[in-house]
């Protein structure tokens, strides 16, 4: 159910004209950004890292905006009532949607790599190609699970959109998607350690540039699963509250 649901939601998302426009432009911008940031820093050999990091930023943006707004979007489409009416736990109904936002974000990684290769001649020499092929999907799905927690908390917050906007860049930075965490101020450390994005970025960096890969990937998946459990509890509460306050439909 989850797999079919996620694929169908990904299909629905990927057919949105806005989504298509964004996904054509953003990877090019990101590849360019990554390349120039690193060239100016004189780290020409880390270009592949940078491209993968930029792709991860794309996944994160997709999860943040897609999952954060998942419930609101379903409400606007009038489909929220219909899916909540299914005899399933609310989390099971919503997790295909948040996974779908991560899946459509995957395209950002592929496209950023492709543009990096075409425009800037980045060589796709992965240190652990097999590990990359396993870890990238695992990390992406973990971010989708993290999305479930976002989906639940965002409906509980009144100014969710403003929050989403303010979270986009800090998380890119704090998780070390572009610059290594070591150059960031110390207080961001614990914050970064709790975010699955940090471990996802690190696992992918280790897979491209060399490193132990698996511990970071395992942490990413672990945090993703924890978020899913928390998100599931929160969603059960959210669903009940929505039925009491009549907010499942667009009033």
């Amino acid at each position, binding site marked *: *159910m989850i797999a*079919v*649901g996620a694929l*169908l939601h990904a*299909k*629905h998302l990927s*057919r*949105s004209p806005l989504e298509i426009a964004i996904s054509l432009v953003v990877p090019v911008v990101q590849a360019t950004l990554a390349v120039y940031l690193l060239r100016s820093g004189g780290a020409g050999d880390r270009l592949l890292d940078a491209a993968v990091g930029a792709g991860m930023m794309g996944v994160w943006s997709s999860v943040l905006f897609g999952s954060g707004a998942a419930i609101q979007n379903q409400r606007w*489409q*009038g*489909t929220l*009532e*219909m*899916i*909540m*009416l*299914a*005899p*399933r736990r609310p989390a099971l*109904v919503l997790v295909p949607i948040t996974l779908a936002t991560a899946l459509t974000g995957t395209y950002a990684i592929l496209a950023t790599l492709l543009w990096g290769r075409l425009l800037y001649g980045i060589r796709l020499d992965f240190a652990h190609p097999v590990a990359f092929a396993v870890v990238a999907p695992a990390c992406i799905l973990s971010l989708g699970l993290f999305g479930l927690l976002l989906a639940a908390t965002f409906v509980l917050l009144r100014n969710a959109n403003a929050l989403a906007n303010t979270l986009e860049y800090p998380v890119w930075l704090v998780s070390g998607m572009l610059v290594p965490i070591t150059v960031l101020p110390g207080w961001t450390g614990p914050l970064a350690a709790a975010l699955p994005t940090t471990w996802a970025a690190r696992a992918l960096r280790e897979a491209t540039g060399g490193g132990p890969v698996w511990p970071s990937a395992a942490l990413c998946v672990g945090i993703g699963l924890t978020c899913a459990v928390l998100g599931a509890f929160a969603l059960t509460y959210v669903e*009940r509250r929505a*039925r*009491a*306050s*009549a907010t*499942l*439909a667009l*009033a």
Partner: protein
Amino acid sequence: MGIAVEAEDLRRTYRSRTGWARARRTEVDAVRGISFSIERGELFGLLGPNGAGKTTTIKMLNTLLIPTSGRARVCGYDVVADTREVRRRIGYVFGGDRGLYDRLSGLDNLRYFAELYGVPPREQKRRIGELLDLVRLTGRERERVEGYSRGMRQRLHIARGLLHRPEVLFLDEPSIGVDPVAARELRGAVADLAAAGTTVLLTTHYMAEADELCDRIAVIADGAIQALGTPAELRARAAGRVGTREPTLEDAYVAIVQPS
């Protein structure tokens, strides 16, 4: 036979905050103590003016809204305490063209909801095929829903509501905006379902539709039941008010919601 739907003194108050700078609380008593029961296999009509509380009543029965007070059971399960058991047994179709995934095909929409409702994968194909035939969308199922006409969307909604063979079907103005030919086919399909043992709760603004289909009808206004009976019983109430001709259900309806 047994009771399929049971409502006991259902009430629902909507509380909302209006205004932005100076929040004001408004309260609407949408349903003020409604009680009725529907036999298994019965086709029960709910008539009433806009804002009477029909949709609110249906949503309390189908678990989308928690009643402010009162109790309701569907197939013996409490709508608040045994939500999931109720949801397994009910279908819900509302009028209008929202509530579908526009950028997916009709077939993908049905596949998705078949998954959500846990229709076993081996059965899905056959079940979806049957329903597409029933609502006459066979041949169009691979087109995106955004290209469907209003009537087609409505028919897709109905197919979706029947995927899991519900015991009780809630139809909230299913014929709204549907052309006369399609509306007649819709009535035929609803009558067939009821004949096959499905319990149906139907709201509509078309008196002829209600008269033709319903075993019993409740007329509600201002959140309360004003009259309840078979179409013949309701018509009989209007006797003498319309001169010498046979009173229609519409005459009875007008007499009930607009007493002179």
